[in-house]
């Protein structure tokens, strides 16, 4: 497998707090990696750094072998990286179809003005995350948390990513909704999508990942298969308080 994403000795400070302390890990193409750790470990910061929403103080982030550290967020999206957020961020006054449409819109003024939206593709993306055709006209205020998570996934998929960063993708969901999203992710995995998944729901997470990296205080403390990492004494002490 070829390395798709590489974090190389990445440091990020917020004033006196070190959020990411020389973190390094790789994600191979088609791999699904779990990023686990207690609250405040720096998991979301890693996602924000990979997306270019914040910039690291030192170290490099490489995608397909190219250093993307200097690129703005939208350029990273165009290269094939996309993320969801802990708290879903839909466009509140737009319906499901329009939310997906923004994700599908090419970053080209001419095409934005003179190109027509691909309604069939919008419907296919909506269906791929479990929406029905009649859901396209619904606005986010009428959606359940599970549906909002699906909308986040749909908007992310609309950007045609090669790697998806999923932040607390199961948070706030009912058991049935967790199963539905897990099934969806398993499906995407089969199709060859690469993932980094952050979740505290270890039961739902385990079958979805090939490997795990455990973090605390911005440092990786264990790396390996999910079972190995969860069996690690340092991880159990930091994460499970054992």
């Amino acid at each position, binding site marked *: 497998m070829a390395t798709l994403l590489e974090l190389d000795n990445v440091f990020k400070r917020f004033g006196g707090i070190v959020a990411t302390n020389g973190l390094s890990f790789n994600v191979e193409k088609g791999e699904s990696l779990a990023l686990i750790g207690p609250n405040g470990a720096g998991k979301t910061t890693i996602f924000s750094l990979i997306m270019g*929403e914040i910039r690291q103080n030192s170290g490099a982030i490489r995608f397909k072998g190219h250093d993307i550290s200097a690129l703005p967020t*939208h350029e990273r999206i165009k290269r094939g990286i996309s993320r969801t957020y802990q708290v879903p961020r839909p*466009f509140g006054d*737009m319906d499901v179809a329009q939310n997906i449409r*923004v994700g599908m*819109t090419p970053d080209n003024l001419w095409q934005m*003005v003179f190109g027509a939206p691909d*309604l069939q593709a919008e419907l296919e993306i909506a269906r791929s995350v479990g929406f029905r055709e009649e859901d396209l006209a619904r606005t986010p205020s009428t959606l359940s948390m599970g549906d909002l998570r699906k909308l986040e996934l749909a*908007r992310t998929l*609309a950007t045609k990513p090669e790697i998806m960063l999923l932040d607390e993708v199961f948070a706030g969901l009912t058991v049935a909704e967790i199963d539905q999203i897990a099934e969806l992710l398993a499906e995407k995995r089969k199709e060859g999508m690469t993932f980094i998944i952050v979740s505290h729901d270890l039961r739902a997470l385990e079958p979805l990942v090939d490997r795990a990296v455990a973090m605390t205080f911005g440092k990786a403390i264990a790396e390996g298969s999910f079972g190995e990492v969860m069996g690690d004494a340092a991880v159990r002490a930091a994460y499970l308080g054992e």
Partner: protein
Amino acid sequence: MTRVITLRQAALWLIFALVMLALPQFVSNGTMRIMIFANFLAIFAMSWDFLSGKTGYVSFGHPFLVGIGAYTTAILSYRFGVPIAVSIPLAVLATLVGGTLFFLPALRIKGTYFALVTLAFMELMYQLIQVIRPDLTGGTRGMSGIKTLVSGAAPNYYLSFGLMFVIALALWMLSRTRLGTSLDAISMNEEAVSGSGLNTTRLKLVAFMVSASVAGLGGAFYVHYLGSIAPRALFDINFVFTIIVSALIGGSATIIGPMAGAFFMTFLLEYLRPILPGSERYFVYGLIALVLYVYQPKGIFAIVDDLRNGKLRLPGRAANGDAA
């Protein structure tokens, strides 16, 4: 939405144009002059809406852009004898330069801070016009005797309506493309637009440029309608509020709403004039605006939409008619 304009919408635009073009046959010259002002206010309100209503970057200094257009063509035609056919396009170009200046703060600030900076732009322009080359600008007293394009109420009405109609249709169609959708999305969550792979800096620049060119075009035609220009009349906070309230009363980010709001505001202020000749009438329009915002913050446009969909509710009642 597969097409930017449907047959039914095209028919509605055509009917609107025909009704407006027929109006001079039925109304007095006085009413026509009110409508001329309403047409220009609609242009300024739509210009404001394309920037502030769509992207959420609220401009309190829109007369800065209107003023660049108005002063450029006034100086060129009045002082240097440049034909209006040349001075107006040059005025729009000058406004685009001004729009770029206006845009720079939006790279770093938003919300209240951006609004205050734009207000500062207007005040700065007001001061500069009076002290920098008053021999050109006319200083505090401004300029009068500026060439007009046509004379008489009806020709001016047709000209101002024609300009307003073309701008309204163009902005409305533009707002229905994916560019319009992306600009709307910026006002809702700019980071998420960037996270959708779109260059938000470029999108905002486009919104500023379109808004500036419309403001400049409107300002240029307005000064050639009035035949005079004075800094206090143009760079005035009441003028700013009239533009903004028109857009908000009509329904921001809809283009049609600000156009309707401009007509509503103009006629409201005119009909209040005999009853309240002083500035007290601004209290009345403030009160109406307040009641409207409390009832329906999205303005007249949303109320008409609710009426059409049978969702209109009375205050204190839920949308479906159930007691709240």
